[in-house]
């Protein structure tokens, strides 16, 4: 088994993601808002505009998806966007350019790339880690790579100082929670329910228990995803999670079967802004009171 940085040890490179989550918790008493969009939907340039919209309106951490032909952990909304991006010619290497543009635009926002494993395997895990680090990326979220199969990735991430965010699920045993927590850096991604990505009326009731169990397994930071689509849900999840991960609800305003005119696209970005601000307000109201001396960034959503 690959040696990994101990969660509680002294990592060679500090995780910017972890540092940010800790700062939000300690100084603002709130969870981070993690926002997902795929690279290249509807085009690479427009996806950059949409991603900048997220960071300009209260998203703390970007989860940048690489479109993939066989996204087995994604529901219909993200599947449609991934297929649309591929149809529009999105390539894996586009992710590095987009990461660079985002980190230039907002250096304080960590950008994690979310990808199924085969594109990274094909690129070469070490080469991928090298190029992602060079572009300013924070690390990877790997929905179909469990730590048991992740030796190559763990070595590459270690060598290039990147986060590795693995998932835990309500079905994970205590033993697997410990294994996954040990292998993770940045945060642990807790799937709120058994299922694929998508908006749901209610966030899984098992999410809070899973966060508790994951912390008991040694995790310092646990973010919750799957099914969160509104500010109210973000607030609910944010009571107990260190971060709230939102995907489909951010992708949906952008979905279109037809190419959009500049004017139509601008309207979609306005819709995206509204959804983002609602979610940003949600994470900021999740906990009753901020500790004394909390810093509130002016101009951000209330």
């Amino acid at each position, binding site marked *: 088994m690959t040696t990994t940085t101990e969660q509680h040890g002294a990592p060679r490179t500090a995780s910017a993601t972890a540092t940010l989550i800790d700062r939000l918790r300690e100084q603002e008493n709130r969870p981070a808002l993690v926002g997902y969009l795929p690279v290249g939907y509807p085009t690479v340039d427009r996806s950059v505009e949409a991603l900048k919209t997220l960071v300009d309106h209260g998203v703390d951490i970007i989860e940048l998806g690489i479109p993939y032909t066989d996204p087995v952990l994604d529901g219909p909304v993200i599947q449609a966007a991934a297929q649309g991006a591929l149809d529009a010619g999105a390539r894996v290497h586009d992710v590095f350019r987009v990461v660079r543009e985002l980190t230039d635009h907002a250096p304080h926002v960590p950008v994690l790339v979310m990808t199924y494993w*085969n594109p990274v*395997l094909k690129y070469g895990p070490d080469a991928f880690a090298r190029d992602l680090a060079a572009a300013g990326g924070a690390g990877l979220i790997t929905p*179909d790579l469990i730590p048991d199969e992740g030796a190559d990735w763990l070595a590459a991430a270690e060598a290039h100082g990147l986060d590795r965010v693995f998932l835990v699920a309500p079905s994970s045993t205590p033993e697997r929670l410990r294994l*996954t927590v040990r292998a993770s850096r940045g945060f642990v991604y807790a799937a709120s329910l058994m299922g694929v990505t998508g908006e749901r009326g209610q966030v899984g009731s098992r999410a809070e228990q899973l966060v508790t169990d994951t912390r008991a397994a040694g995790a310092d930071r646990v973010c919750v995803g799957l099914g969160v689509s509104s500010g109210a849900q973000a607030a609910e999840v944010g009571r107990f999670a260190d971060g709230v991960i939102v995907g489909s609800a951010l992708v949906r305003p952008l979905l279109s079967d037809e190419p959009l005119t500049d004017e139509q696209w601008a309207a979609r970005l306005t819709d995206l802004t509204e959804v983002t601000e609602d979610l940003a307000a949600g994470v900021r109201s999740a906990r009753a009171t901020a500790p004394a001396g909390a810093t509130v960034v002016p101009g951000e959503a209330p």
Partner: protein
Amino acid sequence: MTDVKLADVSGPYFGQYGGRYVPEALIAALDELDTEFRKAADDPAFVAELRRLHREYTGRPSPLTEVPRFAEHAGGGSGAVRVFLKREDLNHTGSHKINNVLGQALLVKRMGKKRLIAETGAGQHGVATATAAALMDLECVVYMGEEDTRRQALNVARMRLLGAEVVPVKIGSRTLKDAINEALRDWVANVETTHYLLGTVTGPHPFPEMVRQFHRIIGEEAREQLQERIGRLPDVVAACVGGGSNALGIFNAFLDDKDVELRGFEAGGEGIESGRHAARFSGGALGVLHGAKSYLLQDDDGQTLPSHSVSAGLDYPSVGPAHSWLHDLGRATYEPVTDDEAMEAFRLLCRTEGIIPAIESAHALAGALRVGQAAAAEGRTGPDGEPLVLLVNLSGRGDKDVATAARWFGLLDDGAAAEELERQEGRG
């Protein structure tokens, strides 16, 4: 591993292939399945019940049929080649698929789950799963690419007759690969009550090993039958390879007999150079799909490439990890057979032996013709100058393929018949 017979190598890895490239949400269920499978394999009651079903329900052992008129075409008419067919086409439900399905369905009963889901390409695995669900009183949902529901309309009706829900999958390439994606999504959401009855020797551990175990009976029977018939082992074993379950099932009994040549035949579609094929060992490279590391048809970005074949059952961009391992070991060889070659072999078996094979199995028949003809050309024989003996896995029957074949060979000279076929295919 050095003392383990090739036939008994267990997962999760076959060489560097296999593993579990799936969401964490599924790991607990895979562990449970693995544990239950191993317990069952050691449980005489389970083994006896499966054996009873094989005998009384499936009709095993399936016969071994020598096909001399067909063999004439495989040996330049010289009689230098004998061809034996392992008749999995005569199993209940019409293919080898039932072997694995009954095994897994019995496991499901042991685990107390009430709902089965499955993917299907040609429909044979879906029909077998729907059959087992009816037999064992389980709810059954079968995911099938929309393209395949058209190609195999009769099997859709068959599954519905058996009480299964058939869900046409309308995303991606709308074939087997996308049906598996949908089945995996269903499984992630319902894993606590549902078993994913995967139909081939791929997917996450323990599926590749478990499905091989449920199909190894094919090779074990054939080996014994051939010993009885001719007193020796075959020189060559031929099988078609989609995911690879029928091939691994028959190969497995001969893996440790190094003089027995093992030949797998993939779908060459319209030819490798056309790019429209499903020949993973000719056009693929190391990759991960549907939970296993194996050979995969993919582009430079690791995106899965669409496969193509006249036979829905071979139309899959990856292959079972054990085949990749056997390929790299050089223990088995894999080569493509085009749509044209397969259909010619299909017609030949119909006309010379009165057996209508599945188009999938016709790829193995075409491969056998190629092997026999090459042997005849080289003057190659069996030991001591005896005829070369080819064992071919006739993995399924061709009832489901009559419409495709009728169109392929232009047999529809009557307007009404043509209309009827079109209607059956869902295109009317």
